């Protein structure tokens, strides 16, 4: 981001604080939990919560998670002060009036005041924020390039729809991986779509186009696509919206088409406790209910078959049990329309 020296120094401080939180505080928290749970049979995240509510390490862990993110967006040096994108994209996105769904406008997701559909700078703010969400994994396009490679192993696709594309972090690598395919990428956020279109033009990627649309009813024809994808979208939907999106994806896919969502799934009681706490601290209210949903059953109920739900590594080795740093429980959900 273009910023004065003080703002850059402040955000440098926040990234260092986040990295310390991800490594040292996270390690101390796990050790504290190991002590508190020693000799106890723990089978649910609510039991973990009962053990950890007296843990000062957990108090500080929680405080830092909340407030590093808060300081990123708000306050004297907050990203909310960033100027909006100035030049329109060479190939601008197709914008239309799309009502913001109530489930989305209910809270300021990620502690981003006004959400992604608010201020004109929301796309750039989101991009700047995403760089330090999980330093090491989200600061570049690495995670999304891995996702594109993962999808590439599932088949050669020609007509691709990316749902909830944000500022194009996945759509762009997908368009590069499937250079002969046509990629449509949709989102609710006009500022994000404008940024995505500008980035695609800058990267000279011609086969992706961006449109403003609600993933529950996109307006595309039945069977128009052979691949529908999303990354980090499912957990931002409430259960009815998620169900609608699955039915819409099924309608949009031609027979034999593939659905791939990258999102989160966690079953371990301690990690589930951490995940649900993150949901509260980061203003992601649907994260717990989407984690608890029987997604395989939901996919089958929407007409999908060959459902495969597998842990996804954002960097090599990240799903090892002894992985030393905090991470999201990235999970790939793959299904096929018969």
């Amino acid at each position, binding site marked *: 981001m273009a910023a004065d020296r003080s703002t850059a*120094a*402040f955000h440098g401080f926040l990234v260092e604080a986040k990295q310390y939180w991800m490594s040292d505080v996270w390690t101390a928290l796990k050790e504290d939990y190991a002590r508190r749970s020693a000799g106890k049979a723990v089978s649910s995240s609510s039991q973990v919560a009962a053990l950890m509510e007296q843990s000062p390490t957990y108090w500080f862990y929680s405080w830092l998670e*909340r*407030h590093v993110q808060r300081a990123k967006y708000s306050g004297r*040096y907050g990203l909310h002060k960033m100027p909006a994108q100035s030049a329109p994209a060479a190939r601008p996105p197709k914008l239309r009036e799309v009502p913001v769904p109530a489930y989305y406008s209910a809270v300021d997701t990620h502690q981003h005041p006004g959400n992604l559909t608010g201020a004109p700078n929301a796309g750039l703010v989101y991009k700047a924020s995403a760089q330090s969400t999980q330093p090491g994994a989200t600061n570049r396009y690495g995670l999304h390039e891995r996702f594109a490679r993962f999808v590439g192993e599932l088949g050669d696709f020609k007509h691709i729809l990316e749902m909830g594309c944000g500022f194009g972090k996945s759509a762009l690598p997908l368009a590069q991986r499937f250079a002969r395919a046509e990629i449509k990428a949709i989102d609710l956020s006009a500022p994000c779509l404008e940024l995505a279109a500008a980035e695609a033009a800058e990267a000279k990627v011609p086969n992706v186009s961006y449109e403003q649309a609600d993933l529950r009813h996109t307006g595309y024809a039945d069977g128009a696509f052979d691949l529908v994808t999303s990354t980090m979208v499912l957990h931002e939907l409430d259960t009815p919206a998620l169900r609608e999106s699955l039915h819409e994806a099924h309608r949009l896919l031609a027979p034999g088409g593939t659905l791939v969502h990258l999102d989160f799934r966690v079953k371990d009681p301690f990690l589930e406790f951490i995940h649900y706490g993150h949901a509260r601290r980061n203003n992601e209210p649907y994260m717990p209910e989407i984690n608890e949903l029987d997604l395989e059953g939901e996919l089958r109920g929407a007409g999908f078959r060959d459902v495969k739900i597998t842990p996804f590594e954002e960097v090599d080795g990240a799903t090892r049990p002894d992985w030393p740093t905090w991470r999201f429980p990235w999970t790939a959900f793959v299904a096929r329309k018969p």
Partner: protein
Amino acid sequence: MNDLQLEQTYFPDPAADRIMGVVFNLAAEVQVLRDRVRVLEHLLEQKGVVARGAIDGFRGSEEAERAMAEDRGEYVRHLLEPVLGYAASRNDVESGHGG
């Protein structure tokens, strides 16, 4: 701002959450200052005003060192004085007002 909501709290005493906020903001401002001082040092060196190592190797006159030591002591006493818990003005203890 309208519709202000209370921030989430994580410590048993919610005052601790707010104190953490002040401390965290101060720490961030210290880093901002550290960064600017380093930039100044580099610029002064580039412009030939102050040689590399001149700050680390600085040894002032006796008077200057004494003044800096006094300043340091005053700063630390000022910083930690609230820990003692004494009032700085007379309280109206008898009537129960402000006591």
